[in-house]
């Protein structure tokens, strides 16, 4: 099906994975990126100002 040919991955994540070793911890770069992203998003969610509408309360 031609759709399958068109929709191939733009970035190929197959192939041998990259792993980091730190003491007894082994973690994939992919998982580390996800975890760091989660922490970053959490911090941003707390720090970024939340829009307020004027004349809001009742």
């Amino acid at each position: 099906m031609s759709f399958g040919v068109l929709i191939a991955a733009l970035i190929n994540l197959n192939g041998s994975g990259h792993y980091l070793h730190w003491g007894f911890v082994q973690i994939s770069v992919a998982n580390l990126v996800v975890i760091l992203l989660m922490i970053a998003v959490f911090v941003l969610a707390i720090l970024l100002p939340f829009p307020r509408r004027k004349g809001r309360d009742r």
Partner: protein
Amino acid sequence: MSLDITTERDASSSEESRQWTARVRNAAATAFPPDRLLPDRQPAYMASWIYVFGVLTVVSLAWVIITGCVLAVMGPSWWHVSGLGHFVNSLHLWSVEFFFFFMVIHLWGKFFMAAWRGNRKLTWATGVVSFVASIAAAFTGYLSQANFDSQWISTQAKDGINSTGAGAFWNVLNFGQMLMWHIVLLPIAVVIIAGLHVLMVRRRGIVPPFDIEPKDHGDTPSAAEPSE
């Protein structure tokens, strides 16, 4: 506690008030009057982006289910033989990744807000249980891929599950059984538990902030509810 209008109208009928139907309806209407079930306002302290992660988790679950339904239309082998099927599988995988991504951030936020305060322990508990149920659903999803990953995960996980004795009946090597748990039983469980969780949030409202100024407190703690 608000009185519901329905009981006022029907109070004269002792026969109806004994009915299961009437009693369930009245209990539901008391617990969830329309403006509590679908409120159009929130406490002014709800002013942080951390509050959107609950709804982000729910919509991610919606995408997991929608993409899962598309995969179900064509069956579990489709994505191995069709480019379109593989794309839908990719949508399903990434919606699961987002589901857990947002759910964990939501958990962190609720922990740091101590969101169990004020009679919200059941809200917290249903949240944790839906997390655990989601892990089980994701696990059976990995088993349903019908590829090398499924083979490895099933033959490894069997040892953990067998050690508890559950492997005698819950056989991770049984593709048919695991697929049916993944597409029938666990989605129902996740949706019911997550649904109860959302209903609990509506019932109790969003937890108020910690006090930060010493006040002359009375000895009457109570659950915070929106004043009507």
